[in-house]
């Protein structure tokens, strides 16, 4: 008598789970449902599996050409989570250059977060003779969101305007999110051990933290970071100097990174579809070539090597870039250094907030408190409209 309904419930739960997985975009749907700690635990389980599979020093799971995992997208080259960028446009399987990797970092708790000032002028300390200039760039989304966010008055004002607009349109009390204000991590695997490495790390417009992982015996001479709204570095070896120039200042200083567009870029798609006139396209191509040459010359002047020839990555997505090459033996791979317990050195805005911080002191609470104060102490005063 009882078995029938129980079977129906079990079947229903399984069906709903499958529907949720499909509709929610795969296993990531758990991110929205489970608490962060549970997701982190699941991730740790996954990482443990990965580490154990690599632990034997074998990467038998890797087969085929790593470049098969790179897609020619309309916004740029898009790498999946299997490959790392190598200098000169190449790629390697992550497991061949890095001992492990964590991809869910929102719950990671750094040991300390130190403020980093931008360079005072428009120049960087040049590399010493004999150093290897390793240059990496991530243009877009790495997907490695940290729980750490930073924001200032402009972000609070923007969120307050969203709250006001939603409230006035009858949408209730909007909950302001930190999602667009989080730092995003990008892993740098330093596998070069013969000479000191001078790292030049570039990012697109996001707030970025470069997480450094060093192979045994690797030495870093200096870290230079260019771009981003805010920018920083994690697991920097003690005593290594770091210089940062955010996107706004880089633009003013004439540091305008530009690289040739990929064949599948929207520009070439538009050209093929006839959406751009040929004379206009030629003009644009000339302009692109000019931007690329200018950036290459500026880069060479600052660091003694060309931007394009030294670049690893420059992709629109991806999670790892390599400073060096693929090590001959598994022991030569970079040792993964987690964000958990690391020291971060980052440029930051007025406020810094961690995921899971006391909500009464958080971003959303600040937005609501200020909006309420502006609205004479009651958000009901935001309502407008005449009864027609």
């Amino acid at each position, binding site marked *: 008598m009882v078995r029938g309904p129980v079977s129906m419930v079990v079947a229903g739960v399984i069906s709903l789970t499958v529907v949720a997985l499909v509709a929610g975009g795969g296993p990531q749907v758990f991110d929205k449902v489970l608490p962060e700690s549970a997701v982190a635990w699941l991730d740790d389980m996954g990482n443990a599996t990965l580490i154990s599979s690599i632990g034997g020093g074998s990467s038998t799971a890797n087969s085929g050409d790593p470049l098969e995992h790179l897609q020619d997208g309309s916004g740029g080259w898009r790498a999946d989570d299997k490959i790392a960028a190598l200098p000169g446009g190449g790629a390697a399987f992550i497991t061949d250059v890095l001992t492990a990797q964590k991809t869910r970092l929102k719950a990671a708790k750094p040991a300390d977060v130190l403020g980093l000032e931008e360079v005072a002028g428009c120049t960087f300390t040049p590399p010493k003779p004999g150093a290897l200039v390793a240059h990496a760039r991530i243009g877009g989304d790495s997907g490695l969101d940290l729980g750490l966010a930073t924001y200032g008055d402009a972000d609070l*004002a923007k969120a*307050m305007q969203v709250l*006001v607009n939603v409230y006035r349109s009858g949408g209730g009390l909007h909950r302001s999110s930190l999602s667009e204000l989080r730092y995003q991590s990008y892993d740098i695997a330093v596998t070069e051990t013969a000479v000191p490495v001078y790292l030049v790390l570039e990012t697109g417009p996001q707030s970025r933290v470069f997480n450094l992982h060093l192979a045994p015996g690797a030495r870093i001479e200096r870290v230079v970071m260019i771009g981003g709204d805010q920018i920083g570095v994690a697991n920097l070896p003690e005593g290594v100097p770091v210089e940062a120039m955010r996107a706004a200042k880089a633009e003013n200083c004439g540091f305008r990174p530009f690289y040739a567009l990929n064949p599948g870029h929207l520009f070439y798609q538009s050209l093929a579809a006839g959406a751009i006139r040929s004379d206009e396209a030629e003009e644009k191509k000339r302009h692109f070539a000019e931007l690329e040459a200018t950036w290459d010359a500026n880069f060479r002047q600052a660091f003694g090597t060309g931007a394009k020839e030294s670049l690893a990555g420059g992709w629109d997505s991806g999670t790892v870039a390599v400073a060096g090459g693929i090590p001959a033996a598994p022991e030569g791979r970079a040792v993964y250094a987690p964000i958990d317990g690391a020291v971060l050195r980052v440029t930051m805005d007025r406020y810094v907030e961690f995921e899971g911080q006391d909500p009464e002191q958080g971003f959303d609470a600040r937005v609501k408190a*200020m909006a309420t104060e*502006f*609205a004479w102490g009651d958000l009901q*005063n935001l309502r*407008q409209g*005449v009864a*027609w």
Partner: protein
Amino acid sequence: MIVRIVLFLGLSLILLSVGAMGWQYWQGLPVTAAQVAAAKAPKAAAPGAEPVAQKPAAPQQNWLISPGGSLVDRDTVQAYLRQDRFAESRILEARFRAPVAALLGEGETLPDPAYREVFADIRASVLSKGFCAELTKRWASDCAPDRARVVEGSYDEATGTAEFSASLAYSELPRGALPDLTTQVLYTGYGALPLDQAEAATPEALLALAADAAAKDCAAKAPDPALCRIRSLAITWDGPQKAGARWQIAWLAPLPKGMFPAPPLF
């Protein structure tokens, strides 16, 4: 057991549906004359209560004919005839620049510059009240701000001002009884105070000029000024030298000879 639950739920749904249909039918029944009379009967005022100005009753006819013989559009008819209530098509639109400090209460100071635009947006309705005062002291029986906002990105740090856009609803004071509407046609006309010739020191002063000018326009164009109404007003003010106003008026006049009205079927 399960069969009983299913039957119970089915019967409940049927009863709910039948109930909803019955309620809809009841609501759709025509209103009787007695009910109308009861609804229109004035309610006894509470002792000591302020006397309330009587708004003109809306005419029964809800259509009007243009001088060309066609039906006047519904919005214009509403704006002209329904002076007993606000109409979405009878509004004052104002776009003007004002100091954000004008929104501060007593003892308050301006927030940090980053917040001034959103502060101004939140409090924008304060600035609309002056407009209503200008209309009600002239020809409006009632006025209320409907929407007041800051124009996005308009805050100017150098002058401490922002550009605001506001819309206000109003109704006009009664100017006597309307004639038999079947014997009239509705004319519409436009007027304007050109940009940089208004020379008003404030947006409120500009509105005062525009409200007077629109009333004069009515008097000049309508054969019977009591049958002329101001359908809409719009002002833009970005300083005394960059100000302008425009309006639309509508008035009734007797049917031209040889024209006969044909009421709409629907």
